[in-house]
């Protein structure tokens, strides 16, 4: 089975994927209340403002939690186990969940990480986490 791939042309999430292709983490910032939000959403769930801009965030953060898949629970991940997925709290606030690049040390909560941009197709680049 082929990989699980996002729709990078999605009208709301598209700019997030375009930024990842360029090696940036970009999230929406509400132009009414100023809050950052992730995952992408058409409006602000706090103030209901519908206007927003895309703001680049620093690519560093801290592991909030993680899970290690020892078995592929979707055929797209056959042959990739064991792999680790982590929720990373960025230094700029939002939490972003992505794959942790395999390293010498096992992951622990509180680990410092930096984003790494992994091109999986011409269109799709996934944000992954490199332990610092």
């Amino acid at each position, binding site marked *: 089975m082929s990989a699980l791939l996002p729709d990078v042309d*999605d009208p709301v999430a598209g700019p997030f994927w375009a930024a990842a292709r360029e090696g940036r983490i970009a999230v929406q910032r509400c132009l009414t209340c100023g809050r950052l*939000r992730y995952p992408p959403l058409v409006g602000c*769930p706090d103030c209901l403002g519908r206007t927003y801009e895309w703001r680049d965030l620093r690519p560093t953060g801290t592991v909030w*939690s993680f*899970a290690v898949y020892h078995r592929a629970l*979707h055929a797209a991940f056959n042959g*990739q186990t064991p792999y680790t997925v982590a929720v990373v709290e960025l230094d700029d606030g939002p939490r972003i969940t992505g794959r942790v690049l395999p390293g010498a040390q096992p992951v622990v909560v*509180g680990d410092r990480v930096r984003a790494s941009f992994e091109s999986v197709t011409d269109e799709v680049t*996934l944000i*992954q986490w490199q332990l610092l």
Partner: protein
Amino acid sequence: MDVAGKVAIVGIGHTVQGELPGRSVEENAVDAIVAALADAGLAKEDVDGLIACKSAQGLGNDVAVGELLGVNPPYAQCLDYGTCNFSLHLAVMAILSGMAETIVMSYGANARTGKVDFGAPLGGVDLATASGLVHIAGPAALALQRHKYLYGTTDEQFGWIAVGQREWAGRNPNAIFRKPLSMADYLATPYLVEPLRRPDVTMISDGGVAVVVTTAERARDMPHTPVYVSGIAEQSGVRGAYNPDNLLRPWLRDAARSIWTKTGLSTSDIDVLYIQDPTAVWSLQMLEYYGFCGIGEAGPFLAEGHTRPGGRLPLNTHGGQLSESYAWGWMHMVEAVRQLRGDAGERQVDGAGVAMYCSSQAFSKAAASILSTDPAVAA
């Protein structure tokens, strides 16, 4: 309006839970309805309400179940997948509003032989799913890992949920997983999605379940001891991913506050506890949020054995989704009724008079019900 003692469960029924190849969701639901009506001493014509709960594939709605059951009840409604406790609440509301007097609620599943893929992303593919965060075990593992970090919860402490439920399942002839599981066996089981092991995650099985609910007045003329609904509460978390700390489902605490306030009861009034458990993490969280132990203290609480046979807070005495059957929490309601009727055989809890059932629809909704043979248990 206070619901206490006004509506009662008077019939329970289910098919064999396990592998039912070639049978549709609706067949399983209707067979369970037939069993529940027989248990209540009713014919299908005696029912003026039907509430169907959808299967994981979205099948088994009221229209499909009504067709196969051959009824046109005045009131027919359908709730989404994963809404057993919510179905009970809707039935209570429909009865108290006069919309119906006697309602049968149903659920059918054929997810095992139908090979439903529970790893398939439910919405579109986002960064998390593209990175491999699939299946309910993934977010549950993230929540457990955070719990371990915050409170020092150990694998062994957490393992008492699965091990304890297997002990209960050994006393339940309906349970699919009855082979003894010691703590040593549990700890020797490889991780599935670390820190979760296979015994911490629901099995998938086929089967139907149904429950008949009616007014307290009619319930007194039914064959079985009525099991009264003493209190109901719900709390949504439908902001979903935009809730702070949504993996930890902090809104469960509001469902707890609501049911204790509405009923005037407290944790010490509960004789048997049921927690809907697609993963054991749900039990860990709800023990804490509903106040059976302090926040962060579920690990030591479980290790003290309170939820196991012989303990003071028997939990999921049928084995739950981890050991009895999948049935999306519907069998939890059936087991609560069996315990309160005194019909639970080898696993009967002496003097069980008040049961509580806590469930959730994953990361979006919580529901709690308190049931009792005493119509006046709640103030």
